[in-house]
């Protein structure tokens, strides 16, 4: 059953998932070693959910391709299973005549469950201790702040976080629902048929353009996976964003490129343009672009500019705070070249990272 779905050359990029999945009992399970950042972003091995996902993957020795999996209609070798908030894509095949039929995990994607509410603008506030949420009346915003949320299970969840993020009793939220977060993914290219994400990005682009003519500047607070939606929207924006100021909190994805895109639109950037609080996906995302991001932030303004010193100080602190983790991360990624390493060994190397 030799197939070109995973070539012999490609197969070298895969490692056994764990010592239990080397084929001594049931089908061998291998995973693409480069999926380590995705895995560690989505799965906390210390949590109950994380352990459930790991056990499920190990269980594919016996269950791969059976009842709980979806089969690709166009390719009988390709399967997908959803466990907790993670989609596991794998192929069942024999790489060469000397190998047993194995399970090859080729991709991991977020599959967060959400409330299905539409992406767009909402006014969020408080009456006493009670949270209030409503649709905004149009795309023009009267307040000073707007938040794009990262991965959140519901509008209520995102609204609570938005109030905390802006330290205000009322704000505007551009709700980025889970179905949009899942479609955009932050590790691979968005799917071609990501209609929800495209619609959300178009609406966000309209909001950005509509609020360029305000009398005072609008402060954008972009959280987590919200950065991926902003990138999509920026590609649809015509004109400048000079009247809008951006700040990223625990951004996930290519923050360096996002900042450069904003710079190209002449947008303002907050003095604390990027901040991290130790959230797993953001921390991993940072480690993959640490030097590039630091250089970009430092180059935003010239020495002598009022915010230069503060940014320089923040970036230096970020670099020093993450130097140990960066070495660990790089060490874990290099382990895959060793040959005998399993994916769980690589995970162990990252212990204590986030």
């Amino acid at each position: 059953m030799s197939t070109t779905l995973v070539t012999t050359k490609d197969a070298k990029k895969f490692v056994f998932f764990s010592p239990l999945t080397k084929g001594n009992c049931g089908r061998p399970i291998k995973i693409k070693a480069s999926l380590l950042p995705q895995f560690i972003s989505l799965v906390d091995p210390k949590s109950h959910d994380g352990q459930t996902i790991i056990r499920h993957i190990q269980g594919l020795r016996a269950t791969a391709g059976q009842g709980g999996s979806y089969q690709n209609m166009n390719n009988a070798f390709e399967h997908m299973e959803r466990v907790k908030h993670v989609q596991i894509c794998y192929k069942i095949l024999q790489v060469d005549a000397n190998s047993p039929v194995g399970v090859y995990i080729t991709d991991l994607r977020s599959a967060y469950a959400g409330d299905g509410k539409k992406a767009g603008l909402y006014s969020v506030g408080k009456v006493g201790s009670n949270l209030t949420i409503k649709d905004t009346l149009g795309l023009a915003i009267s307040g000073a702040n707007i938040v794009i949320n990262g991965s959140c299970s519901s509008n209520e969840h995102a609204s609570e976080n938005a109030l905390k993020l802006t330290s205000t009793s009322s704000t505007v939220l551009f709700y980025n629902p889970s179905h949009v977060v899942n479609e955009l993914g932050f590790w691979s290219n968005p799917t071609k048929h990501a209609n929800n994400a495209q619609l959300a990005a178009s609406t966000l682009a309209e909001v950005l353009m509509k609020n360029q003519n305000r009398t005072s500047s609008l402060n954008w607070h972009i959280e987590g996976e919200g950065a991926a939606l902003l990138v999509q929207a920026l590609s649809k924006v015509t004109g400048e964003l000079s009247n809008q100021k951006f700040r990223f909190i625990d951004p996930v994805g290519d923050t360096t490129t996002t900042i450069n895109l904003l710079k190209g639109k002449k947008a303002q950037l907050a003095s604390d343009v990027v901040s991290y609080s130790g959230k797993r996906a953001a921390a991993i995302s940072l480690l993959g672009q640490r030097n590039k991001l630091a250089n970009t932030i430092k180059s935003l303004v010239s020495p002598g500019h009022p915010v230069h010193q503060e940014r320089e100080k923040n970036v230096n602190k970020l670099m020093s705070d993450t130097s140990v983790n960066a070495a660990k991360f790089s060490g874990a990624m290099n382990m895959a070249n060793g040959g005998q390493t399993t994916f769980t060994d690589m995970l162990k190397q990252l212990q204590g990272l986030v």
Partner: protein
Amino acid sequence: MAKLSQILSPEYQHAPLVVYSLDGVELLISLPQHQSTTDSVLAPSDIDIFNQSVYQGGPPPNERYILLIKNAWSYRFENSSIDAGTLFLTVAIVHSLDEREKNYNFLDGESCAEWIIDRMVKSYSPLDAESIEELKLNDLPFSETHLWIYPKKASDLEKIMKNGMHWYRGKTGHPSMGEPQPFFRIPINSRFALEMNIHFGGFNPEYFEFPETIETTKEFLLQEFLEHVRITYPPEILAQVTNTNTL
């Protein structure tokens, strides 16, 4: 996929008991573990409700309140890795200073209901300055659909009996957000009241085999939680509450 019986509730019997002594009134709640990245709050059990410095909230029409509990927990579908939804709860002590001229007595059923309605009207009735500005900016005419939904008269409030205590129940929300969310009020003494606000998040119709049962499901989950909330009054307060709060 899911029916009411297929949603797994928190194990209330194993949930921590949270106890407050509020001017002699004991509040006891079996509180499921906080399961959200939103903030949680648990005020000290012996909090002094007469200490004005522990109140938060803005000037009128905002209420001043002490946030006792802010918590959220999830409900899972049985045999599924998907969460059905989350219940967001706030429990607070409310003490409005700006209505003393009306001499409300919360231990009197009619007066308490009048106070609840007065507060609702002040908080939700008008279009706030930000909304008026938004209408102008977006060149939109005013419409009734821009206004909040809230109880406007005492008869819009429901009085419910739970664990031997009478609670006032109502709903607030905005027409743009679907079903309004429930709130509950119960007097602590003549001037102070306890409020509980509930928000359900999630409950995506996509995951329900019978989406039309979602509201019934939420009500069931709400009643289940209320079963685990108990208020014990001192005898003298209980006598007044019982006398005036007849259903």
